[in-house]
């Protein structure tokens, strides 16, 4: 394999991984607070369509990202109100959010079909971002750097700050946190809002980073894969990064395999398209094989909390 090909692979796989990484980082924080929001896919779709609309209307991709974040956060607040304030079933509510996001994006995405989109310019000078070798470091969309900064930021927040400690405590034992005086529901609202914003940004990544046009259901299950990655990563941000890039490699494998030629040329493209989903299942099995004993899951994950006044 030539250096050029390796660089091309790295750049493609990192791009493909970025939305999943961002969405999974958000969901990791949500789950650390003890809430299971299965609506990632729905929030991503909301963020994608609103992000597209904003970026298309204003011509400014940054506003697209901001609008996507806001849309994801608003969608997540529906979930938060139902599950946290009304203590509804988290699994069912997450599914409802996904169905909602699909309808929402289908409805509001319709007018944008076939419209072109302005993309991010590189944050680095062309000497670096277009350099045949150095572009492997400098040649990405700002969203990629954002995702990497967020990996460190989420890790630092959870492990090194008092607020992060409180968030983990709430996810570990809501009753204990409540009895020493922490606002369990309030903390969870904030976590869900963060997760929603991240999912919204992840959704906006599809038009703003991957394919600069509107395609219905463009997230095609990436939100669910993000959920699986959180499990695979044992709720650790660093492992999430590895998992997401591994996934990106698999998702883009068709390109390299076709380039490699031989037997790979005759395999049907549907098989390649199925690979990420099959790989996700394999990854979940591998994780369960390894996780003898503690999985690292927050003890209160998915359990509703209703304080007695």
């Amino acid at each position, binding site marked *: 394999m030539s250096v050029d090909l390796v660089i091309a692979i790295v750049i493609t796989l990192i791009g493909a991984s970025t939305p999943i990484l961002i969405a999974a980082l958000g969901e990791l924080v949500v789950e650390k607070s003890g809430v299971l929001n299965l609506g990632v896919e729905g929030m991503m779709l909301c963020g994608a369509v609103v992000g597209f609309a904003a970026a298309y209307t204003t011509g400014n991709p940054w506003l697209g990202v901001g609008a996507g974040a806001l849309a994801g956060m608003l969608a997540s607040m529906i979930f938060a109100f139902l599950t946290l304030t009304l*203590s509804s079933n988290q699994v069912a509510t997450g599914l409802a959010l996904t169905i909602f996001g699909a309808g929402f994006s289908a409805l509001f995405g*319709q007018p944008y079909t076939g419209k072109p989109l302005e993309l991010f310019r590189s944050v680095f000078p062309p000497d670096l971002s277009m350099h045949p070798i150095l572009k492997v470091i400098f040649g990405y969309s700002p969203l990629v750097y954002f995702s990497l900064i967020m990996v460190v930021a989420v890790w630092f927040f959870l492990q090194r700050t008092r607020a992060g400690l409180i968030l983990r405590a709430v996810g570990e034992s809501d009753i204990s946190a409540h009895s020493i005086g922490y606002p369990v529901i309030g903390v969870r609202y904030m976590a869900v809002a963060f997760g929603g914003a991240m999912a919204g940004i992840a959704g906006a990544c599809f038009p703003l980073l991957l394919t600069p046009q509107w395609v219905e259901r463009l997230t095609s299950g990436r939100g669910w894969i993000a959920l699986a990655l959180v499990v695979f990563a044992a709720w650790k941000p660093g492992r999430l990064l590895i998992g997401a890039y591994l996934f990106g490699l698999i998702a883009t494998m068709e390109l390299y395999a076709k380039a490699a030629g031989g037997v790979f040329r005759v395999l049907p493209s549907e098989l390649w398209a199925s690979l990420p989903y099959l790989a996700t*299942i394999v990854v979940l099995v591998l994780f369960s094989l390894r996780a003898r004993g503690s999985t690292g899951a927050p003890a209160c994950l998915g359990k509703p909390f209703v304080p007695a006044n």
Partner: protein
Amino acid sequence: MRLRLEKRPSPSQFMLFATPLMAVALTMVIGGFVFTLIGFDGFGAVREIFFTPLMNPLKWQDLAVKATPLVIIAVGLSIGYRANVWNIGAEGQYVLGGLSATGIVLLTQDMSGPWILPLMAVAGIAGGMAWVAVPAWLRTRYKVNEILTTLMLTYVSVNLLNYLVFGPWKSPRAFGQPQTIAFSADQSLPYIIPGTIVQLGAPIAVIIALVAWFVMSRSLFGYQVRTVGAAPYAARHGGFSANQTIWVSLLVGGGLAGLAGMLEAAGPFGRMVPQFPTGYGFTAIIVAFLGRLNPIGILIAGIVLAITFVGGEVAQTTIAFPYPAVGIFQSMMLFFLLAGDVLVRYRVRIGNRASAGDSTSEASA
């Protein structure tokens, strides 16, 4: 002023049945209002989507056609959901059911006889079961979450469908169209009401709902499923195997979704095409919840959701209301239902303090 929840000593049976009706009513009112706000004819849409299909007898046969797969799939899902087994990939099992039936069609191309259709049904059920057996095995053997695996396999099933209809199963007479050959008369469902489009699937859906109702409410198996879902440790204490319950409930759910796929393929579709996955498997989740996981309730909820599908098409032609908005109405129903769930388990109070003597006065509030 804030919302406060007060646990009821036991779930309110009244609210259990009242909340689905409230959810539908709220969806009409608030949905109409919201769509009006964002510039659509919101209340016109509510009228066309929720009432026109009911008022117009010509549309009733469409309701039966749409409700059939929804009811069959939702009944199967409801059994799993009762046991806290979350199969959300019914869409994939439905596709596999359709593909298995199509496989029989291709094998019996030049044959005839009344045995073909039952064979297709068996194949459809087996296909759905086989597709869900993987998540069932992974869940019971490796404790892998079935939510993610069933859903992942749905994406795989769509790729499998595309591969087959674009590739080996493509009809030679289709002029390059991705579709299989048309099913013959012996490979298609008979019409049961002359002059309509209502086929054999509709009565089958009713029978399945009735049988499921009897099994779930009267048999020890139904008791076992309910116990495993409500209190897994108690179920173990009572000598019920959680793994067996997971297996059976997933196989029933997958089998019924597969049957629905076969009935659609041999019914309305009449051949296999890439448009076969229409989202029934996902909408059936709403049907199952709106029907309170009760097969009779599901029968009614299936008709309600069928009304929105048919009404959505009506609204599109009569007042140019965008069809994708139907999905928003449907998910709103589920949101309001889940919000209403709180009334089943809790009394909702407003304000900070419980006032004196209020503990007995509002038993059903």
